[in-house]
């Protein structure tokens, strides 16, 4: 009888530890993705503003606005992706992968929609400046990799 009680206690303790680990893992994930996005977004803003300044010097105000629109469309797309990941519950590898693919789909849809709206609605658009700002912003988003697995917050 005493052995059974001990077994039950050990079992319930194991379950508690597993639950705590699961909660800890969810928190860790949120911090990691938040850190990565924060770092990537910082670099994206820096690069977009730099490109905007360069285009303003060499192409005028319309080129600068086009460049900043391109850069911020990539930034907003990334933020939409992060919002999609934020509220998921499943911590299995398959669940994580599905959530990530959904986030990527959302990101591409948001960026495409924004580009479509910009091309349709902005009359003074300078297309090469828009593509330049977009390309620079998208390519620099990998800078967040440095924040993943880093203890600095």
């Amino acid at each position: 009888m005493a052995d059974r009680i001990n077994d039950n206690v050990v079992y319930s303790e194991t379950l508690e530890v597993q639950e705590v680990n699961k909660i800890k893992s969810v928190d860790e994930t949120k911090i990691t993705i938040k850190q990565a996005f924060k770092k990537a977004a910082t670099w994206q803003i820096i690069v977009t503003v730099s490109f905007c300044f360069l285009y303003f010097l060499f192409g005028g105000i319309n080129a600068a606005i086009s460049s900043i629109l391109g850069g911020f469309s990539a930034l907003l797309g990334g933020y939409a992706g992060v919002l999609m990941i934020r509220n998921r519950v499943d911590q299995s590898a398959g669940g994580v992968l599905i959530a990530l693919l959904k986030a990527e789909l959302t990101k591409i849809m948001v960026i495409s929609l924004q580009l479509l709206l910009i091309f349709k609605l902005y009359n003074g658009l300078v297309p090469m400046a828009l593509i330049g700002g977009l390309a620079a912003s998208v390519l620099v988003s990998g800078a967040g990799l440095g924040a993943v697995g880093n203890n600095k917050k």
Partner: protein
Amino acid sequence: MENMALLAQIQAFTGIGIGLIIGLGALGACIGIGIMCSSFLDGAARQPEMIPVLQGKVFLLLGLIDASFIIGVGLAMMFAFANPLLSVIH
């Protein structure tokens, strides 16, 4: 009349180009994402405790793999809505 034929030809070839830009970009991105996701599942099966760290890296790398596709979409939209090749006609 000759200008109209030239315009139609440019638009037709631009349409083919847009299809190729988006199609080949999507193909490359899909292959890259497939390879990375299989590696992620492999790593997660070997070390489940690494899933949170790997997840952040996978998210950022997905963005990098898709970068070429997104840039391609932007270029394709440029050719669709503000085709610079049409200036030859004017």
